[in-house]
């Protein structure tokens, strides 16, 4: 690695999370730097989802700290994480099938006026939202059949792209992607991978959860491996160490 590293956008220090007597996370630390794709690997039940949920404010850590730009933030709710600049795209995508892409983008944070009214009673500034959403879709080179059709009419890949694009509009620091290609065909996966590369090129920090080793090797600048709630390894994924990576995940070498 080069001696001058970009500053960490996100730091997790000694994260610990228990569910009853079971440790879901124990002493996990990691850093995600600006402009890098960090892969979070591990078998089912390794603690990836728990860690992501702690970072995005769904669960609170029992011990340890989460820092955004070197500042400790108590991630007690998804709203706090979002305000800190962390956006998460879960597998269910949290899209509204009955709304258009632009409406999906701004759902819950609509551009509206006048500002002295309570939020729900303000008027939508639809033209502005449409324009800005279209600009993002364009910039990220996402291709949609129709911009004013409900998301229900779009394919799995297009929906994934919309969810990722929505996250990037609001993520000022970190985008977390949970299995973004799990439900997609080969071509559609390719589009999403291109999109992730685009995000990195724009200086975003991406945390990527995936089971697909090919994607990890192609995309990830670093990989952190979890097993049974512990961090068991961290390395730069390459074709040469793919086997090592797999045995770290499986625990075969232990």
């Amino acid at each position, binding site marked *: 690695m080069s001696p001058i590293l970009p500053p960490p956008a996100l730091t997790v220090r000694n994260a610990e999370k228990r569910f009853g007597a079971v440790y879901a996370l124990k002493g996990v630390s990691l850093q995600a730097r600006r402009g890098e794709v960090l892969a979070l690997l591990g078998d089912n039940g390794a603690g990836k989802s728990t860690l992501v949920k702690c970072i995005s404010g769904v669960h609170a850590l029992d011990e340890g700290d989460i820092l955004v730009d070197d500042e400790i933030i108590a991630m007690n709710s998804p709203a706090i994480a979002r305000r800190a600049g962390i956006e998460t795209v879960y597998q269910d995508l949290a899209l509204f099938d009955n709304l258009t892409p632009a409406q999906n983008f701004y759902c*819950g944070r609509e551009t509206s006026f006048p500002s002295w009214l309570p939020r729900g009673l303000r008027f939508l500034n639809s033209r502005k939202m449409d324009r800005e959403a279209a600009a993002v879709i364009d910039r990220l080179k996402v291709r949609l059949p129709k911009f004013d059709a409900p998301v*229900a009419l779009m394919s799995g890949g297009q929906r994934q792209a919309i969810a990722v694009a929505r996250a990037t509009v609001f993520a000022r620091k970190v985008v977390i992607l949970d299995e973004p290609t799990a439900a997609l*065909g*080969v071509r*559609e996966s390719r589009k999403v991978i291109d999109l992730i590369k685009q995000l990195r090129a724009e200086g975003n920090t991406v945390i990527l959860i995936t089971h697909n080793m090919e994607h990890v090797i192609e995309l990830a600048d670093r990989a952190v491996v979890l097993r049974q709630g512990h961090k068991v390894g961290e390395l730069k994924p390459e074709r040469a160490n793919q086997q090592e990576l797999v045995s770290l995940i499986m625990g075969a070498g232990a």
Partner: protein
Amino acid sequence: MAETARQLESVSGGQSAWRSARGDMAVSVGLRLLGFGPLLILVLLAAVIGLLTPNFLSPGNISNILAQTAVIAIVAMGQQLVILTRGIDLSVGANLALATVIGGLVYHEVESGPLVILAMILAGGAVGAVNGLVYVYGRLPHPFIITLAMLSICRGLALEFSINHTTMRGMPDSIMVLGNEASFGLPNSFFVVLGVALILFVLTKTMVWGRWTYAVGGNPEAAVEMGIPVKAVLVATYVIAGLCAGIGAVVLSGRTGASSPLYGNLLELDTIAAVIIGGASFLGGRGHLGHALVGAVMIGVIRNALNLLNVDVFFQMIAIGLIIIIAVEADVLRNHLEARARVNQAARTE
């Protein structure tokens, strides 16, 4: 658009592109037809009935239909919002009856039109608030039960309050004017429908609250994740449905010049039928006020026409039941077509 089409052409093979383009065409035409379907059917229905009974399309009869439909239309617009959020309000009919009775009691005390109107509308809104608050904060899995309970409670209260009277005669002039008289050749109740529609249109289509309502109906879990105040949205929805029932009470007591604990019997079913017949999805998230209005007029037209044709009243019920089945099947078909559209999209990328 043209550029996208060309890119797509180059991605897929010529033949399959042609086939998928034709599939797309069929799907989008189908979806569009389903969107316009209810209105189309209404127009056809009116034309056919007009041919069978010349009286049907006379200004007098049209005016008549509008007046008869007004109550269903107003209450159905509230029901529409509830169904939009994946709910149902079974209490609207009983709520309306209670509101007329409360209006009647107020009229008994003070001869003030505005006060009676206010009492009816607020009574409706209060019942709606109970529905919404118990549903949301009582953590009920579905509003079916609470609104069923409120149906019973409201009907009971209405009977209790109207002590031994099945109807209480007398309503202030201002209410009679709303329910009975006409302006510009159209019944005044029609303008009440328009007014409610206009307010609800502004609320649902131009304001943030309306967008949130659609979001809650489309994906309640995601709405929570996106920071939408789902509970407040739901409570407000039931309050609005209740207010609509209250406004319906004003129009109905205006038409009859009375209040009665027996009013609005089965109105909940009529309004649900109107929303579904009009083309809104029962699964939530889809539909707008136009659906409730078209559905309400369709019910009015069918009843009126079968009356003019001297068809048995029972057959009206059967006819409306059959139309409900067709409407629900159309909803199923729409979901099917949307799934097809998704597959077509994915196939184009492959």
